[in-house]
């Protein structure tokens, strides 16, 4: 074994991603330093690290977002580099710069690249300059005449959006020119009320878009490649839920992979990018794709790319950060088989997916062929209320998409987390859905799915088994006799069916 690239690396994160990063560091012979808030002393990332440092009370603003304390911890423990994971400080240009100033290697891109890609509008300018397609739109506020001109040039439908907007306020879909003027007036006055700014811009509406993103990787010597795409169209409240690699659309039209890959590499190069990053695109049914934004960090869903390419992205990140030239050339990258990932959240699918932290009393994880879990939970651990509800990522690999979906269902059926609520039971219906299997995916998929789904049927004996289990469980708690009353099982079956989610 040769000398490690760094003797010690601090992981400035928590949860599954901190654990995932530490796993690779350990494989590389690099000592690990965990940082933790008071809510995380018992968390797995602290337990498995070689060294650890407390950085404050539970709120993120007082702990995982405290650059000063994290840099102090790095100094105190003699860490040569910091891996930021995702979230928290990972896309904070100021933190990257502070690391650079402190002589600690930031395992990620330069602070300048983060800044260049930091805001959606700045990133859009970079992409345009690099010749990467963006969603056609007016660059600034428009009046009715300018909006009309844009509509004629881009074609309907178009979308009117508030310059100061967000959350769908001051947004209008316009399907024909006749509706344009009144829509602009309404949206503008709505924006004025909501944001005290009635300025509107216009954008081409991408109908039923897919979210497809390209993983890029670059070294500090100007060598930049892409590792193909991931499809992340299955989203709920703009949160990705299921991701896969390859994208079923791109898999049918592999020329898209090269076109999108090249476009992503061009945009990244324009920002002087190195290390791992992700360029997000919207794609329409005609297979046009448009730059959305760039995430200047390791992505949550990176395991599906790893499973299909056979690469370890964290290892590559560390090598790049150490100044190593990328040995991998574009033509060396191969995509083999199919990977899918489900994000397991501590949330209650029976109560509007509200977060549901608490103590994990029971845990059985799926095993067997083609299963990978990136998680940070263990039985007896209490999921803190202070952070993101992501518990684990369940990823599977198989030769083909249908086999991967079947394998995922099998793995989900083995997964049992007791004591808290999770969304584990929710995935199966999607994975069995005919539209999902036909890969007719788009970002509004889950909303439509909720409208069309019919709850699956249970067997009479299953309801009997449930009643028996509940009775035996209750019996173990109390004992006493007698009274009578009769009824049929049919009512229960009906009731059981209405309440199930599967």
């Amino acid at each position, binding site marked *: 074994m040769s000398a490690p690239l760094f003797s010690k690396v601090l992981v400035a994160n928590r949860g599954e991603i901190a654990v995932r990063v530490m796993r690779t560091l350990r494989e590389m012979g690099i000592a690990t330093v965990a940082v933790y808030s008071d809510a995380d002393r018992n968390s797995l990332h602290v337990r498995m690290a070689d060294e650890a440092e407390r950085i404050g009370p539970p709120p993120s603003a007082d702990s995982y977002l405290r650059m000063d304390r994290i840099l102090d911890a790095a100094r105190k423990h003699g860490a040569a580099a910091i891996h930021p994971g995702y979230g928290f400080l990972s896309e904070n240009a100021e933190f990257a710069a502070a690391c650079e100033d402190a002589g600690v290697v930031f395992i990620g891109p330069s602070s300048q690249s983060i800044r260049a890609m930091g805001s959606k509008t700045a990133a859009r300018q970079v992409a345009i300059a690099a010749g990467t397609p963006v969603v056609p739109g007016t660059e600034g506020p428009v009046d009715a005449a300018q909006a009309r001109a844009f509509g004629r040039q881009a074609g309907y439908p178009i979308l009117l959006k508030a310059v100061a907007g967000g959350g769908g306020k001051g947004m209008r879909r316009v399907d024909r020119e006749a509706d344009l003027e009144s829509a602009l007036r309404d949206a503008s006055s709505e924006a004025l009320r909501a944001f005290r700014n009635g300025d509107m811009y216009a954008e081409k509406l991408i109908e039923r878009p897919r979210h497809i993103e390209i993983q890029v990787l670059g070294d500090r010597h100007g060598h930049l490649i892409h590792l193909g795409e991931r499809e992340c169209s299955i989203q709920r409240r703009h949160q990705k839920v299921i991701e896969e690699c390859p994208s079923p659309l791109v898999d049918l039209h592999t020329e898209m992979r090269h076109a999108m890959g090249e476009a992503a590499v061009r945009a990244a190069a324009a920002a002087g990018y190195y290390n791992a990053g992700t360029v997000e695109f919207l794609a329409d049914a005609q297979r046009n794709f448009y730059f959305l934004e760039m995430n200047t960090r390791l992505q949550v869903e990176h395991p599906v790319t790893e499973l299909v390419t056979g690469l370890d992205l964290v290892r590559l990140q560390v090598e790049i950060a150490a100044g190593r030239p990328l040995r991998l050339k574009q033509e060396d990258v191969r995509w083999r088989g199919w990977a899918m990932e489900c994000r397991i959240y501590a949330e209650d699918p029976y109560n509007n997916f509200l977060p549901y932290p608490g103590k994990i009393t029971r845990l059985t994880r799926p095993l067997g062929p083609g299963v990978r879990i990136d998680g940070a939970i263990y039985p007896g651990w209490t999921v803190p209320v202070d952070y993101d509800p992501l518990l684990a990522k369940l990823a599977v690999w198989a030769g083909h998409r249908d086999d991967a979906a079947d394998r995922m269902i099998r793995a989900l059926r083995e997964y049992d987390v007791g004591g808290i609520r999770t969304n584990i039971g929710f995935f199966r219906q999607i994975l069995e859905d005919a539209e999902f299997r036909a890969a007719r995916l788009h970002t509004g998929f889950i909303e439509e799915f909720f409208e069309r789904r019919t709850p699956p049927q249970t067997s009479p004996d299953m309801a009997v088994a449930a*009643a028996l289990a509940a009775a*035996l469980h209750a019996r173990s708690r109390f004992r006493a*006799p*007698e009274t009578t009353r009769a009824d049929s099982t049919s009512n229960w079956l009906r009731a059981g069916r209405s309440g199930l989610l599967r």
Partner: protein
Amino acid sequence: MKLHLTMDGAPGQIEILSPGPACCFRLNGEQREAAVETPEPGVYSVLLNGRVYDARIEELADGARGVAVVIDGFRFVVEVRDPRRMAAAAAQTGRQGAATVAAPMPGKVVRVLVALGDQVEAGQGIAVVEAMKMQNEMKAAHAGRVASLRVKEGDTVSAGQTLATIE
């Protein structure tokens, strides 16, 4: 022992004639047999008519009655009552006419929006509970007077915990 059951609102009755492993029970008058093991606490492996059911018990939120039984992703909410204890339980339930406002999830109280004795409208916010970056406003189900206020800002609450009562 005979027990009253309610499965997602539908009533029934079960009598355990002999518990596991060779379990004999009478469900709504019909006598049946099953092989039952408890491989882990809260997990019942039920072998019924040649089929295996791995039934996992989920405790419901504090204050909610019964348990959820999850079998292969299907979920049954089952309440089991010992009829002899019902009288005692009834005696313990609170005064009539008071409605409780409870936390739907474990979390932290970030804001209390009313004071003790306030008159509130139906749908008026009582407190805001936050967990995992999501805030939830707990509202009064009925108009009335805030008869008790059990939490203050910064308190940690568990699912089902009473935040306030409205009379």
